[in-house]
């Protein structure tokens, strides 16, 4: 169980589908390792479903039902659930057990999955870079190297961290507000013995 959890409002925005894709990816990766946050998201979805039943219906366009039936006529019935396939790229250094949301994004990139050196002991792969305000990248940080300089207000970093493939530590930093102590404690001691992997999403401009 990770020691850090996503904040309520972030989980809500994830569950209602209003997070930008890079941030949503961070949350989805965190959820892969955090049963507690998964439960929270599930309960928000349950509440969303109940809300759905409670809101007033809006009339559809004329012919909407016929059109839906027409499309149904050609539709096949699916019986399978999720695949459980995790077909992401494999890395030689043991980072082969990425959470599925992340590996799917990496696999879908049209560029080769190659680490780009950013600084001594720090390499990076852009995961999603095409959003106006957010991007997400995966960083590989060598043992003992500090997390790159960053601030905790305004242009904030939100990251998910994984050290080694056996022990999983994940940290989801608050997305919309800064809680200094929480993040800093982690920043200062980036797993001295192991390589650290951080999935992070710097926010370009705060709106």
């Amino acid at each position, binding site marked *: *169980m*990770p020691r850090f959890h996503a904040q*309520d*409002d972030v989980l*809500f*925005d994830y569950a*209602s*589908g*209003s997070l930008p*894709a890079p941030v*949503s*990816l961070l949350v*989805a*990766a965190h959820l*892969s*390792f*955090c*049963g*507690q946050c*998964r*439960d929270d*998201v*599930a*309960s*928000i*979805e*349950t*509440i*969303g*479903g*109940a*809300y*759905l*039943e*409670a*809101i007033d219906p*809006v009339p*559809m366009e004329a012919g909407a039902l016929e059109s*839906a039936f027409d*499309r*149904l006529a050609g*539709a096949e*019935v*699916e*019986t*399978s*659930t*999720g*695949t*459980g396939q*995790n077909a992401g790229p494999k890395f030689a250094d043991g980072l082969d*057990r990425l*959470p*599925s*949301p992340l590996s799917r*994004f990496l696999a*879908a990139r049209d560029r080769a999955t190659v680490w780009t050196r950013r600084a001594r002991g720090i390499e990076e792969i852009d995961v999603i870079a095409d959003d106006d305000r957010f991007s997400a990248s995966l960083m590989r940080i060598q043992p003992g190297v500090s997390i790159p300089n960053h601030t905790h207000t305004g242009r904030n970093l939100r990251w998910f961290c994984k050290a080694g493939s056996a022990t999983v530590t994940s940290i989801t930093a608050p997305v*919309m*507000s800064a809680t200094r102590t929480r993040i800093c404690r982690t920043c200062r001691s980036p797993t001295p013995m192991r390589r650290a992997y951080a999935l992070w999403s710097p926010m370009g401009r705060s*709106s």
Partner: protein
Amino acid sequence: MRLGTDDRSAEEVVQETMLTVWRKAASFDSRQAAASTWIFTIARNKRIDRIRRELRPELDPNDPVLAGATPEAADVPLLRRQQDERLRAAIAGLPEEQASLVRLAFFQDLSHREIALEQSLPLGTVKSRIRLALLRLRRELEDLE
């Protein structure tokens, strides 16, 4: 249900949702979630897919790397029905200042931050009202967990 899209897109999302509900009905597991929850997540995903037209970051519940405890699914249809009723009653009983923000958050595709801007409310106020509403509503879910 508008979901923050224009009329034409909203119609399309509803149609695609109905289609998916039909196609996947066989895989719906009522022990895992209420039907309304399931339909809510399908509609949400269809709407995101429509806006992004790209991959959607999504947890895979069957991911082999999944870690952390997941509680046993409550296989109690009667409890579930009672819970639904209590949840609906609790929603109806929410103070309007909370209820309206939760509606915006669920169905207008607005993040907390965007709601604060649109409603000219401080972000902290939006967060705390929605949090209060969720706390209240989650109380109705706790018996099942």
